């Protein structure tokens, strides 16, 4: 307690007490995160053969394969392309959604907030299978309806396409974007739009010049969450994309459980992790620098 009040540097005893208090959490973190992660990194440097299994040696074979074989590059590009498009869609639809939600009154606000958060309460697998039921080939409900009504001749291609993957991911990730933007909107001074109106701005100008710049940090933090969750998503790409259209996460899964090439799967997983960390930390630094004046 005295360490909080006094300005003196903590004594050795106090530092030790702090360490002791943090120890249980530290041990848990080390046990379930740091050690498995370190083992995965080690694993990615091991050798593997069809008949000899995993050999604990240090070689760059897996990493070289990933870098040199365009098959893997394609898969990683697809992962980030799909995640980026899903992020874009959640932003384009999520920002107006949050804005409208924020302006709602009374019981409607609570009801629609529940509708927006609702998807989080349902398993991703169930939700994605729902899309499959609607657009799954000739027998999908929506496809059947559209075809019998004569609007389309052949079924909408949804399953095993990137479009399908992007749409399903955007749907699954929408709550994260809406909540992030909504939080930013709640920090807005309710009079600020009136102030801009009184100075002669039209409602579009108010949106573009006053509201959007202020909620941009919220949009960007929502985008970071959606992007990283989409890029590492497994269930949705596995169901919609299947074996034909793999992304990094499903690729790692297949290497581990189907091919049983654990070291290669580990290399894919580690590369995905590193890429994501670089992207997230990089954009976060950019955002903080850009908006530092607003957050002082």
């Amino acid at each position: 307690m005295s360490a909080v009040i006094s300005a003196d540097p903590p004594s050795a005893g106090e530092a030790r007490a702090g360490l002791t208090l943090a120890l249980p959490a530290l041990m848990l973190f080390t046990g379930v995160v740091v050690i498995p992660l370190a083992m995965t990194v080690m694993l990615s440097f091991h050798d593997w053969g069809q008949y000899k299994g995993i050999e604990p040696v240090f070689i760059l074979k897996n990493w070289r394969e990933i870098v040199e074989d365009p098959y893997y590059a394609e898969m990683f590009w697809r992962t980030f392309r799909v995640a980026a498009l899903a992020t874009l869609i959640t932003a384009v639809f999520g920002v107006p959604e949050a804005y409208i939600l924020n302006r709602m009154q009374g019981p409607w606000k609570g009801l629609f907030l529940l509708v927006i958060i609702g998807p989080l309460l349902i398993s991703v697998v169930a939700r994605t299978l729902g899309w499959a039921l609607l657009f799954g080939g000739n027998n999908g409900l929506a496809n059947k309806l559209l075809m019998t009504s004569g609007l389309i001749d052949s079924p909408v291609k949804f399953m095993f396409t990137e479009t399908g993957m992007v749409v399903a991911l955007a749907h699954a990730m929408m709550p994260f974007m809406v909540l992030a933007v909504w939080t930013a909107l709640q920090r807005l001074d309710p009079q600020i739009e009136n102030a801009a109106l009184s100075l002669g701005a039209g409602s579009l100008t108010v949106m573009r010049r006053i509201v959007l710049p202020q909620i941009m940090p919220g949009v960007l933090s929502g985008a970071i969450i959606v992007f990283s969750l989409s890029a590492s998503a497994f269930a949705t790409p596995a169901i919609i994309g299947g074996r034909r259209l793999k992304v990094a996460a499903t690729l790692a899964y297949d290497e581990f459980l189907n091919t049983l090439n654990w070291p290669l799967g580990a290399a894919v997983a580690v590369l995905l992790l590193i890429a994501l960390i670089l992207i997230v930390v990089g954009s976060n630094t950019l955002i903080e620098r850009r908006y530092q004046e607003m957050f002082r």
Partner: protein
Amino acid sequence: MSLLELDRVGKSFGPNIAVEEFSLAVTKGEFISFLGPSGCGKTTTLQMIAGFLDPSHGAIRLEGRDLVAVPPAKRGLGIVFQSYALFPHMTAAENVAFGLEMRKVSRSEREERVRAALALVGLAGYEGRHPRRMSGGQQQRVALARALVIRPSVLLLDEPLSNLDARLREDMQIELRQIQRNLGTTTILVTHDQIEAMSLSDRIVVMSKGRIEQIGTPQQVYEQPASAFVAQFLGKTNEFAAAVDRTVAPAKLVAGGWSAPAPAGVTGAVTVSVRPERISFGDAGLAARITSRIFQGNHWLFQCDTECGPAIVIRQNDGQGQPEHGAAVHLAWRAADMSLRSAGGAA
């Protein structure tokens, strides 16, 4: 001719009446205050003038043309909000320039006017600051500059000083009045602070429960309050029950031991209302005992128990001896210093 005219304006939210029968004519260059406790409808009225709320009844006219049909963006009014509502992602200069940009003022003229407006409110040199890095008083000045730079026909101030500390508030009052006088901008101030309303305004509109209680100069509403509400809301006041004694000639107005010739036309039971600073201690008058005396620097505040109930008296600290705690005194006042209401209603 009046610049801004409110003609029997009313606003109700469902069954709740926020403002009723509000009529006011504001002349050019006037400084008007809407004064009242919270919930009296003063801010609602301001919002209707600004265009953020539509009146349920009545008309609002600016220079003779109907204002209600005009969207807020086209009204050309300058507004300073209680929270200032500055744009936090813009610098002070960008905040002030925003209204000019919307009016498509050329860049060179814009820069000139922004500089002049910031200099006017004493913020020359702060052009590049962001609002979050400014003090409350400075933000307040930016908000004022932003509202004034568009040369509004009417300046609306919504409790602009209520977030400042007491000393800063006094300084800003003086400055606000000076700027308003120099520019001659017609101004409407919404406030719940009677001192602020009295020291700034040409006329005060005292409001209570959605209705206008009185419109008048600060002296008028203070010295001749039209209702018990006005008398009590503007400064402290003492009220004594009195009666007219017609058994003597000439008839006398009597409150306990105090009496004066009865004014013509007054009969029966009345309420006498006297400001505490108009009461003096004398040898004759309303018998009282001093229950507490408080020294407040330039004056003394006495609380007394009188024959007609409790009273407060304020005496200048003029170097004369003052009665002690517990002393028996007599309270007296001149007939010109009191106002009368028939008991139980407004006179």
